[in-house]
């Protein structure tokens, strides 16, 4: 059955969960693919802090990017496609291991550099 979805209303800024139902982040951006002679198609959904800040302006995005370099590893911005979506309701659940994906870089960085070094943090 075909169902219509309002991208901005229903998808943008929705909570994304990984396959273990762990919070991964929000849908911070949506990428469309423009096709010759056909309707545009949703190419990917993005979970990335810098993408979110870019919605306030390029300058803010540059600052966010500078800051994010401290903890970012590979795979930024993190993107997934609609085919990876397992469930779409209040949240969007995707077929991804959150702990091993780019949106968790800050979490890992804080665990290693800060939390792990404080007693009781583990």
């Amino acid at each position, binding site marked *: 059955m075909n169902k219509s979805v309002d991208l*901005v209303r229903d998808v943008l*800024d929705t909570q*994304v969960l990984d396959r273990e139902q762990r919070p991964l982040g929000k849908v911070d951006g949506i990428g469309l693919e423009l096709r010759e002679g056909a309707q545009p198609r949703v190419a990917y959904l993005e979970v990335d802090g810098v993408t*979110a800040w870019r919605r306030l302006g390029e300058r803010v995005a540059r600052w966010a990017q500078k800051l994010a370099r401290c903890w970012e590893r590979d795979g930024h911005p993190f993107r997934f496609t609609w085919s990876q979506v397992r469930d779409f309701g*209040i949240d969007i659940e995707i077929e991804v291991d959150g702990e091993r994906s780019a949106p968790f870089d800050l*979490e890992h960085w804080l665990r290693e550099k800060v939390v792990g070094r404080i007693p*009781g*943090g583990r």
Partner: protein
Amino acid sequence: MKKLLGITLGIVTSIGGFLDVGSIATSAQAGAAFGYSLLWAVLLGTICVIFLVEMSGRFSIVSGHTIVDAIRKRFGFAGFIVPFAATLLVNLLVLASELGGICVALQLLTGIRFQLWALPVGLAVWLLLWFATFDVVEDGTALLGLVTLCFLVAIFTLGAQPRELAAGFVPRLPSEEHAHYLFIAVSIIGATIAPYLFLFYSSGAIEDKWDKSFIAPNRFIATFGMSFGSIISMAVIVVAALALKPEGIRVEEYEQAALMLVPAFGRWGFYLFVASLAIACFGAALELSLASAYSVSQAFGWNWGENLKPRQAARFSMAYTLFIALAALIVLSGLNPMKLTLFSMAITAVILPLTALPFLVLMNDARYMREHVNSHFSNIVVLLIVLLSAILAVVAIPLEIIGSK
């Protein structure tokens, strides 16, 4: 059993969050300067906060969202982030006031200046969050918070006149000090309707996995819990009016406020006040730190929860760590804690529409609330009180600043 726990959550939110540094400071000033005549401000704030807390519980039960989460989704990141940042900033000021309250209580007890307590107190709040689980935080504060009942007892010991009390519920401008009266009224309302209360409550409802069967208990918790807290802050006004006003004692510092229980309880009154101040502020500081870290995590979609070990939710834990550290630094800077508190409360009233109005929009959105959308009546009550308080606050703050120079 789960319901019972839920009801405890409501009562804690009311004691730990309701009777906090803001209520004690504003009520003490109000009673000492204007007698019973500002009781109406507590009542007005309480009506509004009962509606808001009930709504936030109902919202989370029906929609499965926390408020912050939903406001971001409904209004988009760009529309959400600025009001959100403003709310966080005010939360920070209020947290600094709460820590300041604990520090002043320790200063009253030991004679050691409050600034020197800033770091140890911040550390104590942080340690509890770092090592304890939600239930410990919740139940511990609830039990200890009962000490604030001493203000109620004091009313009966001192013997308040019921007729004069009743007159305090009718707003009437005093013969002098109009600007200060307005400022204190606004601060009382700000202290009563603190946004972190309903943000915290909505997070608690999600964390405790409330389902549809909680809709009725939620109404009860909101009404009963918030009224309970409100009665205690009214009691503070009454006690200050009975004990301080006739002696001509103005509350410019906590030292003066600390005398208010002495006529009722003698020397023990001083210790009761100090204990009430310290415990209420400590409970509120815990809630505020949690509420703010919850909000940040919900805003960015991170894993959050006080029942997770810090390592499982590093970003969440670092959020409250940073928040407490900044607040402790504000206290350390040596700003007068009483002034800081009153201004934080007044500013809370100014920014209230930033959280309350988007929230009202959500409460009327059938996509989130289905058949549980707000009634016109509750919309109008909240809208009127929130807008009125904000306008009064915008007028009162500059007047107070000019007046105090």
